[in-house]
């Protein structure tokens, strides 16, 4: 790519018209284990009659991972049936390439394969460490009824979190007594405290808690995010770099201040 500096400037001198922001939305997942047109429709109608309030333009993810039917599922037909009954299919989840192809043809997004649960992602490494925030933030929460947040004890980690590792404190704070390496990722529903250098990515309030904060002894992060609003290292390389910092969300922007 040709990189003349003046090309980087906006030609119209106007303010940016959009900005990318990671969001975390609870999405309902429709686990489909079998499909036969009339039977499926009947059951869907019955469900809709049971909870009419829920079936009103509700976005859903069609999950075909548990699909056991002998025939290939007709994705387009399923999606149409869902729409008829007040559900808006937005994405599909299936390990099958042919099904994914069908979904793409219907304009559905493909969700990454389901992982057993975030809770177990503890110290296991994920090859998806470089996945973008937006993708990362959304798909995991599948509960239609948002469970009441109960106070859970903080998760305390006293060993370095290495590149490729991901640690998630579900429902509470994450306290790291050592450093977080570049290429590692720490997430918490609450606050994140790092008593060493924070060199990787830190995402606090991943379920949307805008009052979550991040504290670290040395800010060298690749990315910091609170409730989906993020900043990259280039945003704070000048100021606060390698110094103790506290980060909070003020309105729509992340505010970084010295920790003292």
């Amino acid at each position, binding site marked *: 790519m040709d990189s003349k500096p003046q090309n980087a400037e906006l030609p119209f001198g106007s303010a940016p018209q959009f900005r990318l922001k990671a969001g975390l939305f609870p999405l309902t997942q429709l686990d489909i284990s079998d499909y036969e047109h009339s039977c499926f429709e009947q059951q869907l109608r019955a469900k809709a009659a049971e909870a009419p309030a829920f079936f009103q333009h509700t976005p859903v993810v069609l999950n075909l991972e548990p699909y056991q039917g002998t025939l290939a599922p007709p994705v387009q037909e399923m999606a149409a049936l869902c729409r008829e009954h007040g559900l808006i299919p937005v994405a599909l989840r299936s390990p099958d390439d042919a099904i994914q192809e069908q979904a793409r043809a219907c304009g559905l997004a493909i969700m990454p394969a389901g992982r057993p649960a975030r809770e177990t992602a503890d110290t296991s490494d994920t090859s998806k460490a470089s996945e973008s925030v937006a993708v990362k933030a959304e798909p995991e929460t599948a509960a239609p009824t948002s469970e009441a947040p109960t106070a859970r004890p903080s998760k305390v980690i006293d060993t370095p979190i290495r590149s490729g590792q991901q640690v998630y404190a579900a429902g509470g704070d994450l306290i790291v007594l050592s450093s977080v390496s*570049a290429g590692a990722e720490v997430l918490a529903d609450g606050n994140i405290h790092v008593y060493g250098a924070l060199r990787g990515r830190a995402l606090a309030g991943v379920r949307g808690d805008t009052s979550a904060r991040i504290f670290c002894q040395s800010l060298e992060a690749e990315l910091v995010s609170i409730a989906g609003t993020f900043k990259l290292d280039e945003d704070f390389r000048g100021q606060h770099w390698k110094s103790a910092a506290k980060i909070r969300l003020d309105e729509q922007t992340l505010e970084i201040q010295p920790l003292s």
Partner: protein
Amino acid sequence: MAKIIVVTSGKGGVGKTTSSAAISSGLALRGHKTAVIDFDIGLRNLDIVMNCERRVVYDFVNVINGDATLRQALIKDKRVDNLYILPASQTRDKDALSMDGVERVLKELADDGFEYIICDSPAGIEHGAFMALYFADTAIVVANPEVSSVRDSDRILGILQSKSRRAENGERVEEYLLLTRYNPERAAKGEMLAVEDVEEILATKLLGVIPESETVLKASNQGIPVIHDDQSTAGQAYSDAVARLLGEEVEQRFIHAEQKGLFKRLFGRTA
């Protein structure tokens, strides 16, 4: 009780095999019965570095498959008593290493009275590298003073402490950092990461710093582990590293540039 030590790095070409050869020789030179196993199935190199290429009859995979006994496959080193080499197979791939098979061979070596078992890991974080590190009690992570190597070392340390047998049992693998190909002059000029930088990033105990030296390549080509060359700085650095591995307190050498005059040495540090 045999101590299983994996020599690993994540990244290729940083000096794992050279270090495995030197450290296993160093342990044997100090009288410890040592075996060194080449886990790089399909890219057999350790036997060349240790100059026993022509003596390979049976290999690690043969032993795992039961085609040969351990005794038949082990090659006795010609320079040092107490040192035995278990070569890799050149004609197979990493999938030939089964968890049960590797465990059986390690156990048999331990039962045979080996005090140290050095596992020379292949590069990468796939099956071969995983098999080499899974049973380790101690890990020597080899890194070069450059960002990508340090990053890969960090990754492998994470895998060690989460996926190895010790980690599964809730224990920690003892970890050491071995920095190879270090050039203090270039580090001082900022062309290379300095020892302190690497130590800070990896937060791991420093086993030693092996200075960049032409004797390393020469030794490797001649099939004489560089630790035998006590005139070379690299050989001396490996001897120090082995001493530290055995729990001795040895001051780090070869970390700082040498051309500095006395005055600069005296005043340079405070500047």
